[in-house]
């Protein structure tokens, strides 16, 4: 295999080591921002959406780049996304079903 072809293979299947390190730095910065938002000034009702958005960003970055899903066959990320969507549905369904019961008791 030629050098050019080898480089093409690397491009298709992932990133270079330093790029992974920089992604790790970015994830750390996002975590610090989350901590600052949680422990810092009172953000009121904006706190939870901010934390959720930042967590989703970290989730997507890890899944896409560290787990290489961005470079995989579409069928794989569709399978995972489907399961993830089902998991989120389960969370919402359970909260909707049982939260109502508990507030009725109180």
């Amino acid at each position, binding site marked *: 295999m030629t050098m050019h072809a080898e480089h093409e293979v*690397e491009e298709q*299947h*992932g990133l270079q*080591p330093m790029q*992974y*390190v920089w*992604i*790790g730095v970015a*994830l*750390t910065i996002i*975590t610090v921002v*989350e*901590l600052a*938002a*949680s*422990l810092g000034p009172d953000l009121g009702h904006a*706190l*939870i959406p901010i*934390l*959720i958005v*930042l*967590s989703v960003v*970290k*989730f997507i970055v*890890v*899944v896409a780049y*560290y*787990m*290489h899903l961005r470079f995989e066959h579409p069928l*794989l990320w569709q*399978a*995972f996304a*489907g*399961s*993830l969507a*089902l*998991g*989120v549905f*389960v*969370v*919402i369904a*359970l*909260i909707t079903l*049982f*939260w109502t019961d*508990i507030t009725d008791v*109180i």
Partner: protein
Amino acid sequence: MWIFLGSECLFFGSLIATYLIFKGEIQLPPFPSDTIVATADLEAALHSGALEEVAAEHCESIGGGQSECAGILDIPLTSQSTFVLLMSSVTMVLAVFGAQYGRPRMMKGWLLATVLLGLVFLGYQVFEFRTFGQEGLTLATNQFGASFFVLTGLHGTHVAVGVVILASLLLGSFRRTGLGAEPGFQVEMAGLYWHFVDVVWIVIFTIIYLIPA
């Protein structure tokens, strides 16, 4: 592996939902975060045996018939363990790179780093569980205690299994035949599991420690 990870999404999703349902329904300490309660309720629970003395020690009267109870969650400490697990994801992806591109020393070095970071994370978890037990929060204390320990305990179990898998790969790499014909595939599969464990902790850390009750 992706199908398995999808099933794990459902597994942890149900546990996270259970925790969220019970998180805001705690009547007596230990509370996850600083909480104000009626002093009379605290004293009645203490005399009836519904509240342990060690848990009541974390509350102090602030006047007006109310007491402020300190939260049991230690966010600065857990932030350190979160950073450790995050760094273990970095070392894991570097180990996968080494395995996939025929760099065995790189693979072994970063696998070792990942195992060590995983053990450090588990150490943090054990310390946290013991501290909570000493402060009166156990599986049987209340719904918060039960859901918290089940969720974080099962996540910790997943981390421990991951450490065993990675340690097995590391030891196997020292054999004469190494990890066989496809070391990249084996390490990548282990990496997927490890990154997923990290991703679940990202969600758990946000929901348990950062989002207030």
